[in-house]
């Protein structure tokens, strides 16, 4: 495996829910997640809505503080970050690209605004001219050509795909090491999705950036990622090389997820189409596997003991008492 860039250890984030009058309840959005991302690696984080993917993105982007656990970036723990300067340095190294291209750019400013602001904030050593050159370079790198024309446009003059490219240009201008991309293509039309996926591949190739690609679209994760992490109800349930996890899923949830992906080239998989269950809301959970109510393989042990990730022979890790 490549050298580790970012690593989390027992990363946990809880939210208080419930109104003033009722009992305070704790929503476990993310529980005990250990993940690693290597230099120049594209890691896909897949799962259904509410599984905790976006919370992880926001923990990595410092929008939320972890309830427990630690994030290590280039060997240093983030909880030790003190002062605005060191936090800014981390923000520049780990920028984020958002889901909704129609709301991720301020409609009152031109395309260049977010890119230039990022450079002013994080690369104070650049002169005005250098910023202009760099602006053209990043717009070029994300395929928005001609750059000189694009930078003067307003967001409403761009298509969804073009806006999403601007999002990547903003990230790129910070000289990032890891871009956290939260569902960057899910709101784009099919015909332009692939272009943005290819862009991420190219940026890894030419700029050496790592990606955490968060998605619910398993097929696109296969297209892009080296490794896949599967989340269910706040837990990481399976993790490993993309082909191994998606071609031969071991965790019963991964199996259900993969079989449900519509695939015009294959026969309709009806084996577990009767499953009408949905991920639970994890409020004040008791120990035990969170998938057990829907699981065809569940045994008594799953009721009592939360399965931990354990490594199988082919190098993947699965959080299941039964799978082998």
């Amino acid at each position, binding site marked *: 495996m490549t050298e580790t860039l970012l690593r989390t250890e027992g990363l946990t984030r809880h939210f208080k829910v419930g109104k003033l009058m009722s009992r305070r309840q704790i929503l476990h959005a993310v529980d005990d997640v250990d993940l690693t991302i290597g230099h120049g690696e594209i890691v896909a984080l897949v799962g259904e809505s509410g599984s905790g993917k976006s919370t992880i993105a926001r923990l990595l982007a410092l929008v939320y503080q972890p309830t427990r656990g630690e994030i290590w970036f280039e060997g240093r723990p983030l909880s030790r970050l003190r002062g*605005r300067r060191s936090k800014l340095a981390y923000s520049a190294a780990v*920028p984020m690209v958002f889901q909704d291209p129609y709301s991720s750019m301020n409609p009152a400013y031109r395309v260049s605004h977010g890119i230039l602001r990022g450079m002013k904030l994080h690369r104070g050593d650049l002169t005005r001219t250098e910023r202009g050159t760099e602006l053209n370079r990043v717009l070029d790198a994300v*395929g928005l050509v001609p750059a000189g024309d694009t930078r003067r446009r307003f967001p*409403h003059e761009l*298509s969804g795909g073009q806006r999403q490219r601007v999002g990547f240009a903003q990230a790129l201008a910070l000289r990032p090491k890891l871009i956290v991309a939260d569902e960057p293509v899910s709101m784009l039309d099919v015909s332009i999705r*692939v272009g943005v996926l290819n862009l991420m591949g190219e940026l890894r190739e030419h700029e050496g950036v790592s990606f955490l690609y968060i998605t619910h679209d398993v097929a696109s994760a296969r*297209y892009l990622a080296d490794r896949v992490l599967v989340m269910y109800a706040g837990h990481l349930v399976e993790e490993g090389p993309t082909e191994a996890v998606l071609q031969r899923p071991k965790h019963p949830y991964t199996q259900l997820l993969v079989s449900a992906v519509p695939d015009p080239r*294959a026969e309709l998989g009806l084996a577990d189409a009767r499953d009408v269950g949905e991920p639970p809301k994890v409020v004040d959970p008791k120990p035990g596997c969170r998938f057990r109510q829907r699981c065809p393989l569940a045994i008594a042990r799953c009721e009592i003991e939360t399965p931990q990730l354990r490594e199988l022979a082919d190098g993947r890790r699965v959080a299941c008492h039964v799978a082998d």
Partner: protein
Amino acid sequence: MSAPSVGATDHVATPPAGPAPMVAAARQGRLGDIWHAISRSRKAVVGVLLMLVFVVVSIFPGQIAPYDPTAKKFPPALGPSWQHLLGTTSFGEDIFSQLVWGTRGSLVIALAVGALATALAVLVGVSAGYLGGATDGFLSLVTDVILVLPIFPLIIVIAAYEKNAGFLTLVVVLGVLGWSYGARQLRSQTLSLRRRDFLESARVRGERKSYVILCEILPTMTSLIVATFLGAALYAVLTAAGLQFIGLGDPNSQSWGTMLYWAQNEQALFAGMPLWAIAPGVCIALLGASFALLNYAFDEISSPALRVRKLDRARFPRAEPPPPEPMDAADRHVLKVQDLSVAYATDSGPVVAVDHVDFELARGEFLAIVGESGCGKSTLLYAIARLLGSPLPGEIVGGRVLFQGRDLVLLEERELRRLRWRDLSVVMQSAMNALNPVLTVADQMRDACEAHSDMSKKEIRDRSREVLRLVSIDPVHLHSYPHQLSGGMRQRAMIAMALLFTPDLVIMDEPTSALDVVAQRSLMVQIKELQERLGFAVIFVTHDMSLVSHFSDRLLVMYAGQVAELSKTRELFDRPLHPYSQGLLGAFPALRGPKVRLLGIPGSPPNLANPPTGCRFAPRCPLAEARCLSAEVPLYAVNGSLVRCVLQGHEG
């Protein structure tokens, strides 16, 4: 146009079509656009012209007024004449000159109060909305208290305490009491912006709070801030005049309110000097009207939904439709859409969203309509169900929709109501929006049954249980409210409601797009089973063609408002004829099999306000030739499929 390298880049050439409301919403906030909108609004133009007159008069009163307004040197109580356009006061002053000099007093108070109240409103409203929590609680409380204070009596008390209140006192008092309404509006606007990704993006970038508020939030609210200013100024004009009229201002100042005060004191109306009172009254009304007109105009700019655009029907001459061929009972078609066109009005003229669409639907057939956003698929669906208007704008400007032999386009609303739900039902994209949040599932089913049938209470109850069981929902959920159901259950409940009367046709607009893949697949399987069991026909609109690959009988691919291809589903997946269909199929990464690099389709769909001549797909087509650009392409029949591509023309 189509170099191979284009696949990796995204040329910024033409503004894309994009859904019109979204573009409109995105446009607010830009000064250039606001100016553009003003110049097109009649209200705004009249308001601006009136305002210009007042501004010019208040800047050059000395040049315009013939006399010194305070000079008491003329005969008192003269009628209007060429020397004294509006006559003189009982003190021998020239009324016209007083009116001219008074303009400045009234206008300056209005502008000063407007500025002060707006500054306070922005400060309080935006801070409350953005900072949230306890800050919001406190600021909102202050705002609400000030909002419910009986302002005018309070001002009278304050102004009476400060005898003969001067200009500054008046401005401060009016400003401090007049910001609360604007603050509430700005707060709610800020709240709606707060979770927008561009603010999150600024925070993730590491910007400070003050920067986010001043440089990211405020510029997007320009038009609302202007509207707040105009509203406050209007209020200041009227309140200040009122206060001065009842003698609480400085009686020696030059303003319209003061004129009214003296006119009242001297009984002007009965002493033969009516213009002394009428002229300042009219001016106050005009200045107020000018602020009000501008305020309305800006309200419309900041929320485009308020604006009513009218479609110019004359541009769509309607040919007298030939009488419908009789559709007898033996006809195997449940629906025939013939030459259907839909247009909607925009600021830059009519846009034809559905352009001469033709298709037929057999009884019990499952037809999927696929296409990208803005291709007209939802508009087509709404047109068939005769639901255009809200939320989807548009009018049918040509063609027919024959359902069970009747032309739905010509039916009265009353007749349509009888048909809908019983024979033809609709399942919308978002069940959360389509279900009433304050009624239980049972209530909503009962309402539907009572409106469309004369079933008894018991029959309704039994039928409700039955349809819920059809979609695998336990009937205990009859007494649940929509928010108590999961997303998948809500969608299934919607489908259950659509099946209350076993209709012949169910129209579905992306019913699964809000669901996760697992729930999505189980819902699709369920729809298909029900359809085979109950025998209704389905029109299913989706942007994801792989979703319907195992479920639909035929597939209609739409591009830029037109039918691009209509084929049997399997046929279309195995041998797509139109280059657009081919491109779409090639844009889905595969879950199995060898990994191949995909290219997608370069560019973006055309702007329907100004579609390209010839083939509408030609600008993005890898196979485009010169002849594709010259003339509209007809639909060709090729081996039982229909395809709009000249490359297929010679084979047909």
